[in-house]
């Protein structure tokens, strides 16, 4: 191999650059670690009652309590599981209905008023997502009372943000050519939307709705914790009566339901696309 001519000054410059980069990275990581340490001391160290946990054996013992299954609970599981599933379905459909007008207002190219209604649409999208489903459920429990209805409404409200945001983005990204064609044949506003826009966005919207439905099964399973029925309520009761085997059974049911939802949504999404 021929010897390579390398300028020694270039080598030292390279080394210098590398050293500087290492120092920079080191400082960044030091800052991150200090920050994390501050967080740990502020939350975990100051706030934990270590004696109550009872050391490693205590923790292992508390975990061990969950490693049994209360098979006798099985018959009581069926109806709440169904309820949870149905709440997710109805909530998602209701969420779609709420999303339509919000997406219409919040899509820059079709909004009826850019100055007033567009910001309102955008705000509704953000509001829906920034309030946690548990908080939505609390609000609706106090508005319409206990039962499945507040759960459905909470799921619907929580879904609006994501569905309408994706829908609005899809509307903003449509191909303008079919829209032009429908306008050119003398179509009115409704026909332009129904023939020009809808066929272009519905695969995206449908895939989003399926995705959201999948997540909503998860959400639906905890609605019962604040009084909105389904598996969450059963979980709460088992927990309060210290029936740890029963808690494990409920979690197993939730897992099964979610795996089922994931399988269904996988095939549905394939069918859509």
């Amino acid at each position: 191999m021929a010897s390579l001519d390398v300028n020694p000054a270039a080598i030292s410059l390279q080394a210098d650059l590398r050293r500087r980069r290492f120092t920079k990275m080191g400082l960044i990581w030091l800052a991150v670690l200090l920050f994390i340490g501050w967080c740990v001391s502020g939350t975990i160290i100051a706030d934990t009652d270590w004696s109550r946990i009872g050391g490693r054996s205590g923790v292992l013992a508390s975990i061990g309590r969950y490693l049994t299954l209360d098979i006798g609970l099985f018959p009581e599981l069926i109806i709440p599981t169904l309820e949870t599933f149905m709440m997710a379905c109805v909530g998602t459909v209701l969420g779609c209905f709420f999303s339509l007008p919000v997406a219409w207002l919040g899509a820059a190219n079709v909004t009826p008023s850019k100055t007033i209604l567009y910001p309102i649409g955008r705000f509704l999208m953000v509001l829906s997502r920034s309030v946690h489903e548990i908080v939505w459920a609390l609000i609706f429990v106090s508005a319409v009372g206990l039962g499945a209805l507040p759960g459905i409404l909470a799921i619907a409200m929580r879904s609006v943000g994501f569905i309408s945001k994706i829908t609005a983005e899809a509307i903003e990204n449509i191909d303008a050519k079919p829209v032009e064609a429908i306008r050119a044949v003398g179509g009115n506003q409704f026909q332009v939307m129904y023939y020009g826009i809808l066929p272009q966005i519905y695969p995206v919207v449908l895939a989003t709705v399926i995705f959201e439905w999948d997540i909503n099964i998860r959400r639906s399973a905890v609605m019962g914790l604040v009084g909105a029925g389904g598996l969450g309520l059963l979980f709460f009761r088992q927990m309060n009566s210290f029936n740890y085997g029963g808690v494990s059974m409920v979690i197993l049911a939730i897992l099964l339901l979610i795996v089922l939802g994931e399988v269904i949504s996988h095939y549905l999404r394939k069918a859509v696309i």
Partner: protein
Amino acid sequence: MNVLEVSDLKVRYSAKGPEILKGIDFEVKDDDFLAIIGPSGAGKSTLIRAVNRLVEPTGGRITLLGEDVRNLNPRQLRGLRRNVGMIFQEFNLINRMSVMDNVLSGRLGYTGNLRSLFRAFPQSDVNQALYYLDRVGLSDHINKRADELSGGQRQRVGIARALMQRPKLLLLDEPTSALDPKISREVMHLIRDIALELKVPALCNIHDVQLAKEFCNRIIGMQDGIKKFDGATETLRDADLEEIYAMEVL
């Protein structure tokens, strides 16, 4: 009688933007198959779209089928647009709908909202669509989705859709520039034959001078928003062409 009269037409897209059309005058007679030629960026597409106000004119006067286009309210404008068939460069089909639904969508101007919602077009429209689909040679593809067809076939769908309007004027916006030369010729043939058969005048904006000379009886040459030539096809000289295309960098 003139189907379309345009005088001193001016268009700019934004108040501060450049003027795309700088005062164009021309007219389309009952039996015209009129070509607009010119380099890209001359304003040909804008001119075509200003005629039925897909692009809003900023000055001048357009008289289409005896109506002053610029003074129509939205409802009257829709009523006028449904009399004007339009064929587009990129076909502008609804890709996810079937060929039949695309052709039927040409009737939307005559169809109420409820019927539109369920796509329940009257049987007479369906018969008409079957007839035109046969006429453009797509009888075997009626139930296919529009995006399954080849370019030439898709433009045929576009033609059938425009014919569904029973147009009194055809606006053609570069109908062949997305197609290869052989298919282009076929498509132009088809459009001209149908226009003659139905006695519909056409205003055709076209990039390919050869096609314009072959199929059109009159030619308008445009350059940078200004009309440079207007006359029968036979009177177009090479010198005129050179002037029209003078600014195009080849």
